[in-house]
């Protein structure tokens, strides 16, 4: 009569495991490794970073992390009074937390940049923009990488 007990235990175990998975999935945005946090602090210093206004576009599933098309767009009229001053992008698990820091101005007309990036591992990528009024806005995207970049050695 040990078989039913074993099944029940397994069922309970799976239910518990599912619960843990859910808890992990809804972890807060601030739960990022220290180096990225530090890099972000260097840019924003003590200012609060709010969510919104900025949109980071990355494919959710990437086959090859050596070259990933990335696009960052900020919702801004880009006038002399109200424009985007800078766009910064950070990674969580690359060997080095910065990706790009772009300086824009009212002459840009449209706050949108595109480039191709390297991503070493499955991770979240954070884009932060600095507006002319001194406020900071952010967007976070989770990316799954099949083949990572940066760390492989030459054959």
């Amino acid at each position, binding site marked *: 009569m040990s078989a039913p007990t074993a099944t029940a235990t397994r069922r309970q175990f799976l239910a518990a495991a599912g619960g843990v998975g859910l808890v992990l999935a809804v972890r807060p945005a601030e739960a990022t490794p220290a180096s990225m946090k530090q890099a972000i602090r260097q840019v924003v210093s003590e200012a609060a970073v709010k969510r919104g206004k900025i949109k980071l576009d990355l494919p959710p599933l990437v086959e090859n992390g*050596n*070259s*990933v098309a990335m696009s960052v767009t900020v919702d801004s009229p880009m006038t002399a009074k109200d424009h985007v001053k800078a766009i910064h992008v950070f*990674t969580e698990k*690359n*060997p*080095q937390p*910065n*990706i*790009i*820091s*772009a*300086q*824009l*101005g009212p*002459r*840009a*007309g*449209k*706050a*949108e*940049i*595109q*480039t*191709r*990036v*390297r*991503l070493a591992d499955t991770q979240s990528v954070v884009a932060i923009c600095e507006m002319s009024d001194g406020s900071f806005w952010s967007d976070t995207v989770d990316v799954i990488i099949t083949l990572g*970049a*940066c*760390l*492989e*050695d*030459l*054959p």
Partner: protein
Amino acid sequence: MAARTLINVPPKAKRGEVIQIKTLISHIMETGFRHDNVGRPIPRDIITSFVCTYNGEEIFKAALYQAIAANPFITFHTVATESGTLAFQWTGDNGFTQDASAKITVE
């Protein structure tokens, strides 16, 4: 060392129109985190900065890091204000610099 560049700027634009500028430069962007086949680290060799000026006035600047893919491709936008020259400059490790320019006619 001369690098090949590819610049895409519309040759003609209306005054006040927002134009897209696409730039590409050939560069290995060696991260400095890799090792060669006998285990020696390969030194870092990347482009660290990119600047675009429109008739001498700076309109876009970017600091690049190891996380930018080889052959950096950057696109951005600007308002076509007057006819003239858009000049681009990339600078990097080991004294790397490369210039390029494109003409634009604004009517």
